[in-house]
């Protein structure tokens, strides 16, 4: 837990594998979900909406965190995968009248499958070729979303996307839908927590720390990297499936290449390789602009500068900073 940051995340991660700290993460998730369930009280529809948006983006960042933070792969298409999920869900629910839950599952499966197809040839060569292939994919998806107006509504987008209902409860209201988002986010985060802790997850980490050693220990490197990327992409699909009914309108702009870059920055800002990092990263990316309204459009510079400084001072992001601070505190107070 108190490993110096320069050692990289290896030792910390081993620390996280301890049962006690794992439970800490899970307890935080449960507590966080409980707080967020009640948080919107007195916040107004705007506050509630921003909270929901934050959670939805967190899901996409979580997926990218698996790809980047745990498997060490650079994907430049997370926003495009989110777009695939969002458009799939929007079209299936509003045009075909399909149930949202089925659309959600299809969105995840679709992005998972596309992830496999994209990752397979790229990872055959070298890890950084995934960045090149996803860059191309990202732009191609954007072109299709924009040009195929008969299907996607083109530049004018798709509107009137229905919100799901739970059993017989309608989730059209801001608060009801927010609670629904909280539950889905919690399930997805818990699933990821379980995945990281499983033998699977350990293989992911071994891979990131030292691919050659992992390979020599019998980890099928290519299969695991590929799976990490595909699952990460599926999370983007899930995020998209929630984004569409949340905003009730989609057009190609939130799924462009620059948004994929932005998502990468969120992973790093929050702390790549930390389960809770994505929540902090998405907080900085989604909620920070709302806090920084005094500076207007300067907030992008502020955000990017924060990321740069973090990368220079503490590449483990805010999570790493908190961990360091915590270690210092407990160290001084003698375990408190």
């Amino acid at each position: 837990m108190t490993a110096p940051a320069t050692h990289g995340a290896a030792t910390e991660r081993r620390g996280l594998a301890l049962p006690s700290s794992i439970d800490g993460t899970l307890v935080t998730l449960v507590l966080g979900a409980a707080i967020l369930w009640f948080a919107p009280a007195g916040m107004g529809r705007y506050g509630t909406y921003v909270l929901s948006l934050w959670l939805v983006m967190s899901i996409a960042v979580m997926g990218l965190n698996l790809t980047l933070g745990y498997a060490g792969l650079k994907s430049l298409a997370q926003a495009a995968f989110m777009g695939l999920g969002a458009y799939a869900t929007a079209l299936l629910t509003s045009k075909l009248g399909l149930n949202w839950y089925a659309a959600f599952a299809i969105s995840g499966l679709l992005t998972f499958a596309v992830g496999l197809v994209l990752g397979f040839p790229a990872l055959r060569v070298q890890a950084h070729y995934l960045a090149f292939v996803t860059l191309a994919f990202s732009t191609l998806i954007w072109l299709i979303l924009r040009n195929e107006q008969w299907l996607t509504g083109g530049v004018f987008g798709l509107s009137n996307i229905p919100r799901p209902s739970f059993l017989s409860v309608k989730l059209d209201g801001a608060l009801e839908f927010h609670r629904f988002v909280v539950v889905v986010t919690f399930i997805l985060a818990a699933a990821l927590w379980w995945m990281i802790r499983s033998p699977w997850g350990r293989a992911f980490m071994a891979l990131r720390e030292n691919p050659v050693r992992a390979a020599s220990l019998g980890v099928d490197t290519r299969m695991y990297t590929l799976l990490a990327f595909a699952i990460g992409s599926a999370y983007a699909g899930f995020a998209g499936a929630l984004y569409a009914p949340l905003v009730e309108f989609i057009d190609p702009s939130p799924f462009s290449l620059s948004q994929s870059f932005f998502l990468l920055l969120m992973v790093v800002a929050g702390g790549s390789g930390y389960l809770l990092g994505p929540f902090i990263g998405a907080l900085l990316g989604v909620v920070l602009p709302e806090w920084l309204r005094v500076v207007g459009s300067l907030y992008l510079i502020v955000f990017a500068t924060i990321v740069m400084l973090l990368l220079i001072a503490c590449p483990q992001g805010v999570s790493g900073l908190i961990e360091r601070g915590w270690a210092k505190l407990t160290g001084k107070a003698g375990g408190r």
Partner: protein
Amino acid sequence: MKMQWILATALSAALGLPALAQDKVKLVDVVELSGAGATAGTNWKNGIDLAVADINAKGGILGKQIEITHYDTQTNPGNTRAAVQRAIDEGTYAVLGPVFSGPIGASMQIAQRAEIAQFVGGEAANLTMQGNKYLFRTSLSQTAAMPKIAAYLKNTVKAGSVAVVWVNNDFGKGGRDAILPELEKAGIKVAVDVATEQGQADFAADAIKVKNSNADAIFVYLNEEESARFLRAAKQQGVTKPMVGETTLLGSKVIELAGEAANGVKGHVGLSIDAPIPAFQEFGKKFQAKYNYVSDHNGLKGYMAVYMIKWATEKQKTFDKKGVADTLRGATIKPSDEPGIMIETTIEQNGDLDRESFLAEVKDGKQVITATLPKIKP
């Protein structure tokens, strides 16, 4: 573990509602200040700021000073929706912006549900076709402008075939979808249909394509910079057929950037600081003095949007939010009643505008108005 608590507390503190000032009227502008719409959005914002400063200097609306806040949407529909919701939660009197049609589409239901008037800069035809009683344009819609272009191409330019060059965003696509049926009605053939990207690297290939189509005229519907760069590329490739455009192509920004290549360009102009109306030219000078560059039509739109709100409020003599929309629908605002509106403007039931517009030509680096077209329903 504590983190979540801290986050939640900080969040609720930050997102809580600030108290409303009593002696002020709060207006929120939700606009594209970063991302693809930054150029249009910045003009719109500056126009609004100029109007607010003018109105406040003259005593405000019904004695109340305007307090204007701008929220950046990052040209992202999700954020736009958040910002409009925020504006309404914070008790804005009316919503100004956004300018791009996509973000407008994402946010207009919010203002509609809250029964608050929203003044947008979008020109796409479909916006006012959805029965939203709270949405108001600040410029002519493309469906109003394109028939005028088609008539101009047929009667004045006498073109039998036209090459259509458009930018593939909501503005350009909307314009292209609106002009094609008008051309067909006028019996004009579309020789070639060229889509371009906003911020496209090079226009040489497009210019060659247009040249090879041998069309009698070229209809150019691009944003400012792209217009200028296309004009230059066309000149370089030796395209000699007349270039016809709508408002942006004849704007001063395009003329400034394209230089000589802009000479001879002609077409229809909705709002323009070069229009033969003293108020427009005066606005142009004020804008230039304050921001040190020349306003495009989005600056004018933002300026007039604030005056539309002022006029409606003074007409109903009270700060009734819902009333703003009711008062404006079907109204005609005359410059003699409200000088800030600059040109007589009729607001139709669906939120579209009707005003006089102009035919113009670029001569020696200046926009010259050749004719004034009457309102569609005078």
